[in-house]
């Protein structure tokens, strides 16, 4: 009796010790679509990774892989991370959605977090930021600032996140400048500085004097800089090296608090699959400093718009709004629900061109 209880106690102690050793360090993996030095999207995700290291020090280990193509390669990278002992893996591009779910199904004990997607499972969370709230502020400034009434928009892929951004920017530019026109160029890439610069040049050559971008590098700003009077905005990161002009403001993705919180949840064993979609109010989307290239009254209006979105007084998608084909979408005062926004695949009334399939 005595011996067995001692043995049991020893076994228990050993088991605990073993568990403690295995739990010693929480390993967090990141899959990046571009290089961490892109100055935009991936750069900000990497800042989030560094924030985890700063917060937890020796208790965490982070690993990351850059330039992972959206496709079969991503699945291989995630599998390798999971096999390498990662407890939590952030997959930071929309195009990793199906791969994330496929790998997650094979590793039920590893937690996955997929950025900007909409498919979840027991061990896959999704998280995104309401970039469209920032786009509303951009659209307002763009509509006020354009002299040619032509605004160029460099889009990446025709996915809901990008289409929401175009719609939101257009609605708010149109509101302050009824003559405004948008030209949308689909680059079909997240990161290709040469192509992004070419797209910006093509738009500028055709008369656009405001360039909005939904691609990851600073190349469109470098191209805008070469023509006097053309302005642009920092995308995903502040891109303040191009301030005060051509970069007059920016949308900054602030992932650090979320990443730290989720890592903490894994450490505490409280992690559950959730869908997070935060905007300006939660600080996940920040509006970068509006420079003096923007007149003071426009700046004040833009800041007021951002404040009203943050306080919840105003929703960027508030009716009356019609779809591009003229059919009614939102009645006066009605706001869009998250489901519609998450799957948005149509332009609002007034935009020209088609959304590619």
């Amino acid at each position: 009796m005595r011996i067995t209880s001692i043995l049991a106690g020893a076994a228990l102690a050993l088991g605990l010790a073993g568990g403690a050793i295995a739990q010693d360090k929480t390993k967090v993996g990141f899959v990046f679509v571009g290089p961490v030095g892109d100055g935009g999207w991936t750069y900000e995700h990497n800042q989030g990774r560094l924030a985890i290291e700063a917060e937890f020090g020796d208790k965490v280990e982070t690993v990351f892989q850059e330039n992972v193509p959206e496709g079969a390669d991503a699945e291989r990278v995630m599998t390798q991370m999971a096999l390498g002992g990662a407890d939590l893996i952030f997959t930071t591009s929309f195009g990793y959605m199906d791969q994330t779910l496929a790998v997650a199904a094979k590793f039920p004990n590893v937690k996955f977090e997929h950025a900007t997607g909409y498919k979840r499972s027991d061990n896959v969370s999704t998280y995104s930021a309401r970039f469209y709230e920032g786009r509303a502020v951009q659209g307002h400034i763009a509509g006020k600032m354009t002299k040619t009434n032509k605004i160029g928009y460099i889009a990446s892929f025709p996915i809901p996140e990008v289409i929401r951004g175009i719609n939101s920017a257009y609605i708010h530019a149109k509101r302050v400048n009824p003559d405004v026109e948008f030209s949308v160029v689909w680059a079909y890439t997240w990161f290709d500085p040469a192509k992004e610069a070419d797209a910006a040049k093509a738009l500028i050559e055709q008369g656009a004097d405001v360039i909005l971008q939904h691609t990851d590098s600073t190349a469109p700003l470098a191209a805008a800089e070469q023509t006097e009077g053309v302005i642009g905005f920092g995308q995903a990161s502040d891109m303040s090296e191009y301030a005060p002009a051509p970069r007059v403001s920016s949308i900054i993705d602030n992932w650090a608090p979320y990443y730290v919180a989720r890592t903490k949840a894994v450490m505490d064993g409280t992690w559950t699959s959730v869908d997070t979609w935060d905007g300006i109010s939660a600080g996940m989307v920040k509006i970068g400093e509006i420079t003096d290239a923007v007149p003071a009254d426009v700046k004040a209006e833009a800041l007021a718009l951002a404040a009203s979105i943050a306080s919840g007084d105003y929703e960027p998608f508030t009716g009356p709004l019609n779809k591009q084909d003229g059919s009614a979408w939102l009645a006066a005062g009605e706001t869009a629900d998250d489901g519609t926004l998450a799957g948005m695949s149509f332009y609002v009334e007034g935009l020209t061109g088609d959304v590619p399939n």
Partner: protein
Amino acid sequence: MDFSAINPLVLLASIMVASTPIVLAAIGELVVEKAGVLNLGVEGMMITGAVCGFVAAVLSGSPTVGFIAAAIGGALLSLLFGILTQFLQSNQVATGLALTLFGLGLSALVGQGYVGIKAPPTPDIHIPLLADIPVIGRIVFQHDLMVYFSIALIGVVWAVLKYSRIGLILRAVGENHDAAHALGYKVVRIRLLAIMFGGACAGLGGAYLSLIRVPQWTEGMTAGAGWIALAIVVFASWRPWRVLLGAYLFGGVTVLQLNLQAAGIAIPVEYLSMSPYLITILVLVIMSSNRNRAALGAPAALGRSFHASS
């Protein structure tokens, strides 16, 4: 359809600028392949050239110094490939791929402090009289010097390969290194020089991206241009003027589709974007069957290792 928004003159000028990096990298690789060496590290040499050129131009304030540094940087990196494949007899395909990975990593390291810095501007040269010709003057005669340099380089490579003794020796080495060796030519030395020439050209192409076309330094900014240059050499069936044609076609399609989109013209963009790659894949498929290889004009000793004892 409304094409009026597109100014054909400006469009053509943009195409020339967009094509120049590929022209430079591809003509360098053509010489390397003509000497019988397959260097798949063009992407790595380009990105190294891009960062060397950018750093040198920023430090010195002179784009010319930048371009010279880019050529030296590209050539040095290719020398590494040359030593590994020519002296140590390593596999050319594997070494070339490794060179690309190495170049991407090295350039990221070198360029760390240079993200977001602006390069000194490269002036467009204004050729007197010629640039004032209506229409043509604006398209053809108002570019930066590198655009003309790249076209001149094609001409020089063509003339040297076709008419000079050096060109004959180079081609002999690429067609049959044993015979060239038997005749007393230094196969390894000739190949090393060709490899370094290719590296220098790729470096210039990369610097054109970071100093003129974009212009800024961003990690991984070549984004596959080196692979396209490789494909264009095959597409051109190892003929210099066809390299120019291929590169301008590729640059043309890229710029044209962006312009068509900006003008709001409804075209199936996806197909236009993928067309250059489709053509390249087709050519590569035809290439890979040995029966057609000779007909396309591939150097007979391409990719084969040489050792004087064999």
